[in-house]
């Protein structure tokens, strides 16, 4: 399979935070041919290990999260579903959205919206508050209560599509595009000798306080933990470049290497050196505090773990139509592979 096929397989699967297990299974099957072991842990993290064959090896862990933002059913009203959000959503992207309600089998729904014909003109310039949104599932109240229990998660259903010459659109590119990069990195490393064991992790719970990855870091006792996650890219309405403390990177300008307190200096430095040696164009992000990635919690597991972050630029984050550049994804994979092969003396603790 090529990267676009992996993206289709991974991103079109549905797994809002807390309900990732089906996605972990799909991800496990996808990465299996390129690693020595795969397992799914207590918190549904997928752990795929590529062994180096050395005795008492050092361990590198790299995590891309498999969970996605979504909604959850909180009640029923006149046959329509009341919802709450899973992860950070902009309420403005929800009206008239087609949705997959994750009962077994799934139920289809549309986020209902009052037609303009019955609204005042000023209503149309105001967003509908989240707690007023209701999902139309074409059922009576009795049918809805029976068919869709409270607590059922809901996901977007956009398919992955090619956008322009080198880009891709779709749902959940945050962060399964990064897991696709890990599959690609594992492929690049397939017949290579490694200086340490590499743990490719499809983590869970990221969109709710980065909950899954630290358990995987704890369990594997990794020496270096890297998070690979999407990062904000600039758009016409998100300019200038620094906006609300969010630095907007450029789509198509290469992976983003983060520096700051969440990043162990030798990891960040080595990633930059390797990018230079391998002629991988990179962008640098300065994060003065919390990074909002799996690296934040993995950094302090056990007595502390060396940590780093590789970012994939992405537009329209947490919408049903996110967008990445496939060139960036390939370069992320190359950077991961380069680091896995040659992390430097400090990482290997020589």
């Amino acid at each position, binding site marked *: 399979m090529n990267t676009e096929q992996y993206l289709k397989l991974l991103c079109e699967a549905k797994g809002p935070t807390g309900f990732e297990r089906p996605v972990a299974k799909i991800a496990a099957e996808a990465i299996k041919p390129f690693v020595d072991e795969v397992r799914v842990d207590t918190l549904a993290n997928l752990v795929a290990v590529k062994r180096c064959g050395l005795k008492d090896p050092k361990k590198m862990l790299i995590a891309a999260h498999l969970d996605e933002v979504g909604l959850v059913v909180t009640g029923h*009203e006149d046959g329509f579903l009341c919802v709450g959000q899973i992860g950070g959503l902009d309420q403005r992207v929800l009206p008239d959205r087609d949705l997959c309600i994750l009962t077994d089998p799934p139920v289809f729904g549309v986020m209902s919206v009052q037609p303009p014909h019955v609204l005042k003109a000023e209503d149309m310039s105001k967003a509908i508050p989240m707690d007023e949104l209701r999902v139309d599932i074409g059922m009576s109240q009795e049918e809805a209560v029976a068919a869709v229990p409270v607590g059922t998660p809901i996901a977007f259903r956009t398919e992955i599509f090619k956008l322009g010459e080198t880009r891709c659109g779709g749902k959940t590119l945050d962060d399964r595009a990064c897991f696709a990069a890990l599959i690609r990195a594992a492929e690049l490393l397939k017949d290579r000798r490694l200086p340490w064991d590499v743990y490719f992790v499809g983590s869970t719970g990221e969109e709710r306080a980065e909950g899954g990855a630290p358990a995987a870091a704890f369990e594997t006792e990794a020496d270096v933990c890297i998070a690979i996650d999407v990062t904000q890219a600039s758009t016409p309405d998100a300019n200038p470049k620094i906006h609300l403390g969010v630095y907007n990177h450029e789509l198509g300008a290469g992976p983003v290497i983060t520096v700051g307190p969440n990043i162990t200096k030798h990891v960040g430095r080595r990633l930059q050196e390797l990018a230079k040696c391998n002629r991988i164009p990179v962008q640098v992000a300065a994060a003065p505090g919390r990074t909002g990635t799996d690296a934040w919690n993995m950094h302090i597991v056990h007595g502390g773990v060396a940590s780093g972050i590789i970012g994939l630029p992405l537009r329209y984050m947490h919408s049903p139509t996110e967008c990445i550049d496939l060139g960036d994804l390939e370069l992320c994979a190359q950077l991961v592979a380069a680091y896995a092969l040659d992390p430097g003396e400090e990482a290997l603790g020589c």
Partner: protein
Amino acid sequence: MLKTLEKLCGLSGVSGSEEEVREYIKAEALKYTGEVSTDVMGNLIVIKRAADLSQSGKKNAPRLMLAAHMDEVGFMVKTITEPGYLRFEPVGGIDPRIAFDRKVYVGEKKVPGISGLKSVHQTPLPERSKIPAWGSMYIDIGAKNKTEAEKYVSVGDVCVFDSDFVRFGSGNGFVKAKAIDDRFGCTVMLELLKEELPMDVTFVFTVQEEVGTRGAHAAAFRLKPDMALILEGTTSADLAKVEGHKKVTSLGKGPVIGFMDAGTIYDRGLFEAIRDLADENGIPWQIKGRIAGGTDAAAVQRSLTGVKVASISAPVRSIHTPNSVAKISDMEQGLQLARLFVKAVAEGRIK
């Protein structure tokens, strides 16, 4: 009926660019009649004669026109910016609250694009309750700059929403698709074309309804009907906690018989006749609870020396959006009622 509706909803036909819909309907219509033509505006005019030839071309028979519009709402590219984004405006009435984070297809080459909105993280809290104005929105086609964008799209290209056709809900009795307004009407006419008709009927698949009922206007002048039945998709707001007349119409309560909307006061005699036909045949029917919206009837009624107009519509939730919802039973009953109407006119029971 559903197969035809699914096919038609999947075609692109933003007002002024109805070619794809017209070509499909034309090919279908030619299977059932030889009298198919396209006028200057782009309306497709299909005449089907009475099955009983003695009933065809009868001297005192009313000239009956059925009409449904082929066009749908969409966007139009206004400018291409230096970084390669497309600025656009709506074609027809679109609620700006549903305009962003949509996959669209731009121009005849159907270039995929995203009507973008910066991420939730990039948006300060107070801004998240405001809807961006038309003109400030943009479409991202994945181009790196203006030159690359211009290889694929041009100013004036129309954009159509991406949307699939889904059956869902209680008893799988609901459908969701784009452009149910008014491919429903087109479907009814295509279904009637397949049948043996009791009189000569002129079917007009109109253009540009969504930008001011312009196709129907020209068609009425050309065809000079005595009587016209408009088949439409109409507003429904029967959502959770919406009371009484504010629902406008309700799904599952049968076809909507037009008595008055923002564009037309329908011919009272025809309204009552259709209402009685429905009652006689056990077909549920409803009227609009709000005088809102409009149809091609407004243009047809005021053409020439005046034309008697009537309408039969299917109630549609989220009308003018990519994810419109209609109930199959309403649409089937709409077809049934239209068929009964033609029969009653042929028999002289409706004049």
